[in-house]
C-alpha cells in the first residue's frame, strides 16, 4: 500500500498521511515508516478523530469517547491521504472530509484502506485498497493490529457469536 501511495502521489512532495482514530492512526504510522525506509524521506503525518463530526450522534446511545486530533499546522495545498482500517458505509470518511475542510484546503485528498467490505451508503470510493472482502449482512469485519490488540489479524465476526 505504501508503494501505491507514493505512485499515486507521484513522489513524496507535500504528502500528508492522516490516520483516522483509532486503528487508522497506527496503520498511517507504519506507512510513514515504510516510506522513510524506502525513500529516505519522512513525510508529514497526523491523526484525526472524527467523533464530533459523526452524522449519527443524535441516534447513537451514550456519547462515544473522543480521541485526539493532531494535524500539521496547515493543510493548504497539501496532498492528503486518509488512512483507515475498514471501509464500509463511507460515513466515517464523509466525517473526515468535513473535519479536514475545517483545517484548510488540501489540493487533493485520497483514501487508502486496508479492507474494503462493500456496503456503501454514500458515494465514497477508496483510491488504494489492501484487500477486498465480501461479507454477509449481520457480519462485521474487525481488524486487529499489534500495537493495540497484540497481533495483526483480520477477523470476520457473525452477530450471534457476540455476547
Amino acid at each position: 500500500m505504501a508503494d501505491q501511495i507514493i505512485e499515486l502521489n507521484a513522489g513524496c512532495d507535500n504528502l500528508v498521511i492522516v490516520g483516522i482514530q483509532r486503528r487508522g492512526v497506527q496503520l498511517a504510522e507504519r506507512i510513514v515508516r515504510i516510506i522513510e525506509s524506502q525513500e529516505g524521506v519522512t513525510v508529514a503525518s497526523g491523526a484525526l478523530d472524527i467523533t464530533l463530526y459523526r452524522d449519527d450522534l443524535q441516534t447513537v446511545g451514550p456519547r462515544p469517547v473522543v480521541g485526539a486530533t493532531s494535524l500539521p499546522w496547515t493543510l493548504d495545498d497539501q496532498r492528503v491521504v486518509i488512512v483507515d482500517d475498514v471501509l464500509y458505509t463511507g460515513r466515517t470518511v464523509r466525517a473526515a472530509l468535513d473535519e479536514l475542510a475545517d483545517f484548510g484546503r488540501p489540493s487533493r485528498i485520497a483514501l487508502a484502506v486496508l479492507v474494503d467490505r462493500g456496503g456503501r451508503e454514500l458515494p465514497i470510493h477508496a483510491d488504494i485498497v489492501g484487500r477486498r472482502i465480501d461479507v454477509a449482512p449481520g457480519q462485521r469485519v474487525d481488524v486487529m493490529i499489534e500495537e493495540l490488540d497484540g497481533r495483526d489479524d483480520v477477523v470476520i465476526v457473525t452477530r450471534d457469536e457476540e455476547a
Partner: protein
Amino acid sequence: MPGPLGKDLLGLAPLSADQIRLVLDTAVPFREISERTIKKVPTLRGATIVNLFFEASTRTRISFEFAEKRLSADTVNVASAGSSVSKGETLVDTARNLEAMKIDMVVIRHGASGAARFLAERIESNVINAGDGTNEHPTQALLDMLTLRDRLGELAGRKICIVGDVLHSRVARSNIWGLTKLGAEVAVCGPRSLLPNAIEEMGVTVFDRIEQAIEWADALNVLRLQLERMQAGYIPSLREYNRVFGVTSARLAQAPHDILILHPGPMNRGVEIDSDVADGPHSVILDQVTNGVAVRMAVLYLLAGGKPELAEAAKKGNA
C-alpha cells in the same frame, strides 16, 4: 436514554469518581478545538441552549457561550434579576415557557440553593448548574481539577487547600466533593466565622493560618472575599483579612516546594491575593479560564445523549 452523566449536571456530590474522570478526560480533546483556526465542530448543530442567568455573571456566561457556539449550538441568553417572588413569574413558569419553544438544554445560575435541581425535576431539557445559591458550581470545580491534574498528575493523595469564605462559596463546596471523590486530601483555611461548622464532617482539615496552609499544600485555590461579608459582620475588615489570610509572595516564598495558585475570579487584588502572586510564576489562573471552555464543551457533549427513538425511526425509514 440519558448519557453517562445522566440527564443533568447539578453538582459533583451526585457524581461518581468515574463520571468525574470521564468529564476531565473528555475535556482534553475539546481543548484542542480552541487552538484551531476554525474553532467549531458540528457536534451540537441544531441544538438550542438557553443560558438562564438570574444572577449577574460575565465570565461564567461567556465561557458557556463559547463552549456552546464552538459546538455549533444555537444559544439564547436570558438575564433575569431577583427571585421568583419579586419577579412575579415563578422559576417553573419561566422554564416551562422556554421549553414550549422546544429547547434542548438550560444552563442556569440562580441565587437559591437547590434551584438547579428544582428546575431539572420539572422540565425535560438537560439542566446544567452554573451556580445555585451557596450549594454547588460543578463546572468551576471540574475546570479547577483539570488544571490541577495537568500540573500535578493524578489527584489521589495530592494536597489542595481552599482559602477564604468557604461558608458562602459554592465553588469551594463543589471542589470539596470532587477532590475527595478522586482521593485528594482537602483542607480549608479562613476565618472560623466563614467556615461551616460541619466542615470536618465533610472530610476536610482546617488551618487557622495561611502559613500552615502554604507549608502543607501542593496547591491553593484562593476564593474571592466579598465586601458584603465584612458588612454583615463576619470579619472585622478587609485589611485584617489580608494581614492574616492574604496570599502574598513573601508568604509563598516560605513554601517548602512548588505550590500552584488557583483563583475562580474575579480577583480582589490586594485582599485575598496580591497582584504579584496572581501574575506570578505559580499562578495557573489563566489556564483555568482556558480549561473552563473545554470542560463546559465536554459537559454539553456528554449530556446531549442520543435519542434512540430517532434511531428506530431512521431504521424504519431505511427499510
